[in-house]
């Protein structure tokens, strides 16, 4: 092993690996560098240990046995409400606005704050909805505005149709919003393909590393959440204890990732 190879290893090897580098026994310069690095690592170890030991562990509170193993389970209605709330928050609460009746066609559905505010109240006009529908196949934002409007107007059929269309668009782009899959899957639980949902999650989990860093964790947690919810639905409809146990395991895996 040469000096160059050793110094390259000194940049990235673990402290244990550094100690085992054979070249250090025969090269004083490399050994001095390695010793300095290891000494600094020892300084860091001392500091981290001092922080870890700086306070006593908090006293435990009495632990109540879990008597509601499905504590996390929500009804489809509450999930839909949560979806609507999330969409509302995402778009921001803005003041009400009525679109001018004589607006030029090109501006009928310009994605402005005012348009979003009208959607929040479910007051988009037929012309605006048609205009956004035309955009929707290529515009996630247009679909999101339509989703909010449909929810606010209590138009469940429209909501589901728009959500499905948005998912189709995202599938083509290869960038699925897992949260939206979750909401759609739970929209009408009587007809949901829970087995298919679980299979989809299982297929997706090995590939989460392909997602960009900034969204990976959130989406991965959503996958776990979706699998847990689907598992609970299957377990509800079955007397199979193994299925119930599996569903509980998925729920725990989700809660471990998302203890909030």
């Amino acid at each position, binding site marked *: 092993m040469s000096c160059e190879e050793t110094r390259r290893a000194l940049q*990235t090897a673990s402290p244990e690996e550094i100690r085992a580098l054979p070249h250090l026994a025969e090269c004083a310069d490399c050994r001095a560098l390695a010793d300095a690095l290891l000494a600094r690592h020892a300084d860091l170890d001392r500091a981290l240990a*001092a922080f870890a030991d700086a306070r006593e562990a908090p006293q435990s509170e009495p632990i109540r046995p879990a008597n509601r193993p499905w504590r996390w389970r929500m009804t489809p209605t509450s999930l839909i409400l949560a979806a609507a709330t999330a969409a509302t928050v995402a778009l921001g609460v803005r003041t009400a606005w009525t679109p001018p009746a004589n607006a030029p066609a090109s501006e009928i559905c310009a994605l402005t704050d005012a348009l979003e505010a009208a959607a929040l109240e479910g007051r988009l006009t037929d012309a605006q909805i048609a205009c956004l529908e035309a955009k929707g196949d290529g515009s996630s934002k247009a679909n999101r505005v339509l989703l909010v409007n449909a929810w606010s107007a209590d138009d469940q059929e429209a909501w589901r149709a728009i959500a499905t269309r948005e998912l189709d668009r995202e599938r083509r782009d290869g960038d699925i919003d897992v949260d939206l899959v979750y909401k759609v899957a739970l929209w009408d639980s009587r007809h949901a393909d829970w087995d298919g949902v679980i299979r989809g999650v299982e297929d997706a989990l090995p590939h989460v590393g392909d997602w960009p860093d900034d969204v990976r964790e959130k989406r991965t947690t959503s996958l776990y959440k979706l699998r847990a919810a689907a598992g609970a639905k299957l377990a509800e409809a079955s007397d199979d204890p193994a299925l119930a146990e599996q569903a509980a395991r998925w729920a725990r895996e989700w809660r471990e990732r998302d203890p909030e």
Partner: protein
Amino acid sequence: MGLPLPVPTEQTRLVEAAREGDRTAADDLSRAVWPMVRRIALAVTGNPTLADDAAQDAMLRILRALPAFDLSRPLGPWVRTIARNVAKNARDRTEGPVEPAAPEAVPAPDLERRMDLDAAARSALAAFSELTPRQREIIELCDHQGLAPTEAAAELGIAPGTARATLHAARAELRRRLLADRPDLLASLRDA
């Protein structure tokens, strides 16, 4: 180099007893995982004062969540996941980016007294705090808690290759910072 945790049978006994309401078992378990919780909190936040509070919060949450823990699984990843999430929330709640730890600025006076660090340890801690959260976490998991990069990857929800690359980059960055006051050595490290 992993931090000491109860061996699995002891861990199972403690968890089961704690679930039944045995305060002594809960306290024993708490003491066993406490250093790991604090270190994860520090790795995630990079700020001893913030990590100090987050660790307390995380530990209480861990104890409350104990009834949901699956005894067939290892305790460490479960504890770390909760500690990580609580610390991330604490970090995200702070307004603006958390300032990197500077030797003279952190930790808070009370914590500083308890840690009683010499100058070299303070300087090393400041270097560690200046890394990115992901870099600190991967170093903590692999170099201090003894996880293999593949295990760390699974825990952090990233690809194994990404974990290895991040670990190497993190070590290189940490060493550049640790040797910042030794330009002669730093130059020979950089020359490689």
